[in-house]
């Protein structure tokens, strides 16, 4: 995948960190037809997204091809001020990418 497939924004406010992330991925469900060849477009989507803070897994998401193209995800957790968040995704072809962002 392209070098920068992940955009993360992590904001700390009143004891709670809100994480918003935007990933770049075609998220092909495998249910679409290719109009040129008439065949099915093979599935290619992110299966797993892991968010860690300080080496601890906070959120582990499993996705199917039903998540929209260029997926967006958001979650919240207690604490996290001044720490670094690491997000890693892996798709069904074994490709993966990860990025880190400081929580501000």
């Amino acid at each position, binding site marked *: 995948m392209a070098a920068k497939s992940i955009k993360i924004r992590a904001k700390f406010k009143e004891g*709670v960190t809100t994480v918003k992330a935007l990933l770049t991925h075609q998220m092909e*469900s495998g*249910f*679409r*037809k*290719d*109009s040129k060849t008439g065949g099915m*477009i093979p599935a290619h989507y992110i*299966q*797993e997204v892991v968010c860690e*803070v300080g080496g*601890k*897994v*906070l*959120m*582990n*998401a*499993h*996705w*199917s*091809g*039903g*998540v*929209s*193209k260029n*997926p*967006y*995800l*958001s*979650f*919240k*957790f*207690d*604490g996290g001020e001044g720490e670094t968040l690491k997000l890693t995704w892996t798709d069904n072809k074994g490709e993966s990418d990860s990025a880190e962002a400081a929580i501000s």
Partner: protein
Amino acid sequence: MNNLRRLIIKGSMAAGTLGVAVSAGLLMPTTVLAAWPANAFGAKDMTEGLANLLGSSDMAESGDIKIKAPDIAENGAVVPITVTATMAGVESITIAAPNNPAPLVASFDLAGGAHGYASTRIKMGKSGDVIAVVKAGGKLYTAKKGVKVTIGGCGG
């Protein structure tokens, strides 16, 4: 006679322990690597998929789960969904759209102080319900919201 019996029992026990050790050793890395539950997300039936993912399809409707989704989605390829669960001890949030070819869409396992909150954008092939299943304290709770889709997002 008795001796032979002892031998056979001993032999089968040894083989048994060996088999267990081998399978445990072999299974350990795969369970860690292939955590993605293919039998759950590949299921064509939502109840079956949820049962495969969460270990049970026995769930109670709950008013503590709020699903924020548009009443009418103009584009089924991008339907923003936000699930907020206010109960204590939320372990996971699962989002499903029963009218999709693969009804299970996303599942968020939450740990280490994560709130009962998950937001994402999903595809919806047809109008229908969006179902959220929240696992909290070992029990399953559910809520749903109808979304009308004017252009499907799964077909080609």
